[in-house]
């Protein structure tokens, strides 16, 4: 379906990658740790490795969660596009085929959250 309008109705998407000064926007969600109230959106150079991105932007943002320091990033499970995904942390975002506005979920099944209830 499309917008019902009297005339042509076509506009450029506002969040195209060319507007981000060489960065891509990447979303990170820590699965079943809702003490961190919402996933993060961060702008990152696609040449940055996934590990650098995590250490620079994600790890400090979740550090207040008591499970955060127990994360072994080498064994974390990932989902992208709602499907299991196996990135190489030491390769760049581009090499890992992380695209603009992708939504990455990192899963730590052995860490059960606050009170072991997924918080």
């Amino acid at each position: 379906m499309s917008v019902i309008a009297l005339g042509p109705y076509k506009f450029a998407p506002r969040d195209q990658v060319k507007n981000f000064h060489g960065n891509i926007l990447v979303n990170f969600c820590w699965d079943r740790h809702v003490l961190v109230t919402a996933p993060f959106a961060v702008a990152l150079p696609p040449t940055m490795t996934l590990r650098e991105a995590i250490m620079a932007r994600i790890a400090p943002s979740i550090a207040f969660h008591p499970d955060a320091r127990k994360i072994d990033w080498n064994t974390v499970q990932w989902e992208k596009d709602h499907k299991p995904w196996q990135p190489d942390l030491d390769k760049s975002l581009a090499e890992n085929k992380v695209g603009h506005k992708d939504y990455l979920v990192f899963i730590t099944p052995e860490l059960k959250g606050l009170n072991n209830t997924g918080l």
Partner: protein
Amino acid sequence: MDMKVAKKKLGIKERYGHMTRGLGWEPTYQPADAVFPYDKYEGIKIHDWDKWVDPFRLTMDAYWKYQGEKDRKLYAVIEAFAQNNGHLNITDARYLSAIKLFWQGVSPLENYVVQGFARAGRHFRGEASRVACQMQAVDELRHYQTQAHSISNYNKYYNGFHSQRHMWDRVWYLSVPKSFGEDALTAGPFEFLIAISFSFEYVLTNLLFVPFMSGAAYNGDMSTVTFGFSAQSDESRHMTLGIEAIKFLLEQDPANVPIVQGWIDKWFWRGSKVLALVGMMMDYMLPKRVMSWKEAWEIYAEENGGALFRDLARYGIRPPKGWADACEAKDHISHQVWLLFYEYGGAAAFHTWSLTNEELDWLSAKYPDSFDKYYRPRLEFLRDKHARGERVYQSTLPTLCTTCQIPLCFTEPGDPTKISHRETVYEDEKYVFCSVHCQEIFCNEPEKFVQSWLPVNQIYQGNCFNPDVDPTAPDFDPLKAVLEYFKYNLGRDNGEFEGSEDQRNFAMWRGQASKN
């Protein structure tokens, strides 16, 4: 011989006829479709505009008289409130955060509704509908003005009330009501009517006005109570207009039914998301609580709304698609939104705080199925951290829903520890949503929502800094620069309530009023 002739007085019905249809005319040198270019393209078919009747049969002359009387009373109370330092009679300075959020995020929406009804009041073909829309436009303008006049008294003493117009177009959480209003304003006049008059005014407005105004009364805010009462009779007229409007559309042509149903699905969901802010006010921001958000939802949405949709079933209208999910969320959304604002409290132009044990117990009792398991542990954890001097302030920006623009803080229906998210790729661009319903709204009108001005994404595009800022400077602090662009007075408008200037001043002034 002189004959005494009784002066004939017009009955209400005749008077209404003269003051509505009697004011219209048939255009002669332009075709009617050129005079009214916007009331057909949405696909709504109207065969007889004269079937539109305002049940109040209110005419402009009577309207001015009633509103003038109400204004005189209202302004007398506002004046007395200001002269008697009425602001010191509120329960606690924490209450002010609710008024700040109302002023920042709800009052400007009144102005959008003015614009929408002024437009509908020009573009509908039927005179009676035009008159009703014009009156509602004036009502909404009056609501904005009376809110401004009542709340300006708080602005003399407390932080966060300044720069409302500036913040509305920029601040991240205000993009939620702003995008709601702009979505409605940029729709055709019939969709606007279903969005505002029906879905918002009729189905949802009681959730905003009744608990909010009772909350003001419970918390000693006579100023807000008075503008609430002054608006209340207008609101009941707006609700009636909403129900009459939808019945009129549905009775005019069976082809209107699926179009109207689509708008109900969309606008009920959008409205329920905006009202999550009200849920947070009720459960967390009122020092004296009236009822829980869940109770309000059960009375005003489930009971009243349920009866409404049973009544509309004879036209072929079913409850909105998101109904079951919105009802399931009554146990969760107020807590999820408060926790979001608490953690992002450094970036909000009102205060957040830790709840006392009595307040936590109240929520435990009101939310037996969700609070102790999912929310109390989080609130206690954050309170303990604050007590240890480690108040949590999140500074990494959250992912926003492309449609409702709320950060993705809501969980999957039936799974309160799983953040709900959906994705759609449209013309090679990816879009993220908070729910299947927001995703569906996008997919029905993707060209509209590809334009969404998402504050987080705009910040990363560099569009939310003051012009003199140098993002390449070594000491550049992007979050601080953004908050300055929002015109926050840093450290006064935002952050923790405990230790805030509002808290100190209120305690000091109230102390002066009651002690030597």
